[in-house]
């Protein structure tokens, strides 16, 4: 009888411990991943980031930091426009929306650039900018030459 009581007492202590067990599952293809990088190809690594659900624009649905390669990932629970903010401590960053399609509708990659072409953009960007500025100043110059002061 005494042994039985002791055994029951042990089980009584063990029960709450079982209640603290953490279960898990792995699902692939459910998360939305966002990659942020500078035009020269450098990633925004370990940068503060927040994700806001279309259901609640005030309280962050996800909060954390980008990883070493400038990625963040979250698992959306509703379709719609998700608001992603990546804020570097130097004031650089990203403030964009990510369209999340309803389940089964399919969702492709989107964004403001392709990492593979970063070196190309790094070269093209100044070239295009210089061309635009040259065109503006050339216009002002020739207009000024035609109009005597």
């Amino acid at each position: 009888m005494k042994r039985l009581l002791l055994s029951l007492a042990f089980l009584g202590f063990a029960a709450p411990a079982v209640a603290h067990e953490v279960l898990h599952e792995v699902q692939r293809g459910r998360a939305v991943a966002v990659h942020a990088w500078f035009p020269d190809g450098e990633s925004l690594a370990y940068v503060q980031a927040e994700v806001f659900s279309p259901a609640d624009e005030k309280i962050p649905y996800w909060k954390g930091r980008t990883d070493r390669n400038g990625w963040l990932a979250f698992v959306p629970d509703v379709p719609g426009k998700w608001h992603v903010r990546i804020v570097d401590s130097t004031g650089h960053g990203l403030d964009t929306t990510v369209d999340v399609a309803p389940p089964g509708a399919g969702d492709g990659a989107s964004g403001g650039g392709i990492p593979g072409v970063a070196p190309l953009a790094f070269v093209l960007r100044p070239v295009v900018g210089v061309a635009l500025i040259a065109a503006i100043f050339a216009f002002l110059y020739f207009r000024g030459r035609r109009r005597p002061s």
Partner: protein
Amino acid sequence: MHVPDGFLAPTITLPAWCAAAPLWYWAVRRNFGTSSTESLPVVGSLTALAFVVQSIMIPIPGGTSAHLTGVAILAILYNPGVAFVCESLVLLLQALFFGAGGFTVLGVNALAMGLLGPGAAWLCYRALRRLSERGAAFLGAYAGMQVATLAVSLVLGLQHRLSPAYMPVPFSVTATAMMVPSLTVLGIVEGLYTVMTLSLLRKVKLVGPR
């Protein structure tokens, strides 16, 4: 250094636009009339060069990048109004075509990087140029970079104080992250860039009297 769209609330961006708009009007009228036509090729070349140097990211330890502004030279050679207009044009093109900075924050970025920084550079250069033109240009550009960086970090800090939802990083972190690279690297490189450009322009006699 550019503040992107979405990091500042309209309570800051609207007053900045209101302050910048009349200054743009005044600076364009004063510096880009028909009487200034002959200086346009040099001003245009320096503006294009500023665009290029702002596209070159200098890696900063800690996972971020920074860049020069390249407009202190315009303030030193002409006046802060020219630098203000040219930097605003660079920022506008970056915002419209390349997604850097932004249209709503254009007033803030232009006032900080185009007016306050070059204004400080011009004042410093004018105060010291009798001692040494190159030294004055270097110190002017260095001071201009610090003033512009401090102005941007103060605005971000103010935004954090007003509403952390827009800028979650507090001023102490922002100011440290921005000012340390600016004081130790960027200011020196901006100073060297300004001195080299000034020397080159003086050598080929493309710019007016000293």
